[in-house]
C-alpha cells in the first residue's frame, strides 16, 4: 500500500523527505512537489502521512485486498499532541480514533541532517549512528575480549 501525494495540496516543504525511513520520498524536479520514488519499497509506516503539514499524502490500498473505496486518513494536531485517525471501511462504516503521540513537542527531535556526518572509520565501528549520545548514556556495554585458545597438543 504505497503512499502518494495530492499535488494540489503539497507545497514542497520537504518534511516527508526528512522523515521517510526508507528514503523514498523525494522532490519532483518539474513541479517541486513531493512524490514516492519507489512505491515497491514503501512499508506503509505512515511517517510521511503524519508529518505532512498540508495533509497532502495518502496511502493507496492494493485493489486485490483493499477494494471498494476503503480509506485511512490521519490528522496530526501539534498543539494537542494528538493523532486522529479516520477509517472508512469497505462497507461504508466510518470510525474515528484519537491517540496521544508523544510527550516532546513536534520538531524538537533533531533531524539526521542536523548531526555531524560520520567519518569513514564509523563503518568499522559496532556502534550505530550517533550512539551512545543519542541513547543518553556515556557508553554501551561491550563483550569482554576473546580469550586466546591454545591448540591442544
Amino acid at each position: 500500500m504505497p503512499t502518494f501525494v495530492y499535488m494540489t495540496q503539497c507545497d514542497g516543504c520537504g518534511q516527508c523527505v526528512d522523515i521517510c525511513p526508507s528514503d523514498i520520498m523525494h522532490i519532483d524536479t518539474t513541479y517541486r512537489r513531493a512524490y514516492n520514488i519507489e512505491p515497491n519499497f514503501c512499508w506503509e509506516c505512515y511517517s510521511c502521512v503524519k508529518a505532512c503539514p498540508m495533509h497532502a499524502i495518502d496511502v493507496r490500498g492494493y485493489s486485490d485486498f483493499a477494494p471498494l473505496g476503503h480509506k485511512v486518513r490521519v490528522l496530526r494536531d501539534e498543539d494537542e499532541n494528538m493523532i486522529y485517525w479516520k477509517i472508512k471501511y469497505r462497507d461504508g462504516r466510518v470510525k474515528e480514533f484519537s491517540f496521544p503521540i508523544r510527550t516532546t513537542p513536534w520538531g524538537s527531535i533533531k533531524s539526521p541532517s542536523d548531526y555531524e556526518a560520520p567519518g569513514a572509520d564509523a563503518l568499522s565501528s559496532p556502534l550505530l549512528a550517533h550512539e551512545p549520545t543519542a541513547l543518553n548514556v556515556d557508553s554501551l556495554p561491550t563483550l569482554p575480549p576473546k580469550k586466546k585458545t591454545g591448540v591442544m597438543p
Partner: protein
Amino acid sequence: MFISNPFAELVAFLPPLFMQAYIVLMIVAVASGTIFDVLHKRSGEFFARQRAKSKAAAKRQLSGMDNVSLAVRTLLKEVLTSGEFHNARRRISHLLLFYGFVLYLVSTIVMVFGYSTQTTVALWPALWNIGALMVLAGGCWFFFFIRVDVAKEGNSPFRLVRADLFIVSLLLSVAFALLWEIVQTGGNLTATIIFFIFYISFSTLLFLGVPWSKFAHMFYKPAAAYQRRVETANGSSDLPTPAGRREGR
C-alpha cells in the same frame, strides 16, 4: 536614481509605444499560458470533479454567504498572508516575493502607461525599486537556503531543474532591471542597451514560460485552498475531525 522613472529615459533608443505593446503582449502571454496550462494538465477538470464529489458527499449544504465567507477567509489567510506555510522562514520569504512582485509589477505598468513622456511622481520609481529589492531579498533567501532541493535534498544551490524556471527567470529579470537602471543613470548608452536586452529577455522568459514553469501556482493554489475550506465546512472532507470538535462532545 531611485526617484526617477527608468522607462521615461528609454525614449533615447525606443518609442514609448514599444514598452506599452510589450506589456500588453506579456499580459496576453500569461493569460493564454495559464489557460493552456489548465487545459493541458486538466487541472480545471480535476477541480470540477473534486467540487462535484465534495457536493455529493456533503453533510450540510453551504449557503451563498457561507461560500463568500470561505472565499474571504482564503483571501485573507492563504493569499494575503501566505498562511498555509507552516515554516516561518518560508512564509516570510514568500511574503517578500509576493508583495515585492506585486509592487514591482504595478509600478512598472503605471510608469510605462501613465508617465511614459511626462515627469513621474517620485512614489512610483521608489515603489518599483523597493519591490525589486524585496523580490531579490526573498528570492535569493529562498533560492540559496530555503529551497527544498537545497535544504532537504542536500543538492547544490546551483543545480537547476525545470521547477526553477519561474524563480530563476524572476530573479534574473529583477536583477537586470536594477542593473539596467544603474547603468542608465551612469549615462553609458551601450551598457544601458545591453542590460536592457538582458532585462527584457528574462522578463519574456518569465511570462512566456508560464505553461512550463510554476507561474500558474498563483492561480491554482488559492483555488485548492478554497476547495479545502469548502470540504471542511460542508463535512465532505475525508480527514478526521479533532476529538474536541466532534459532534456530541
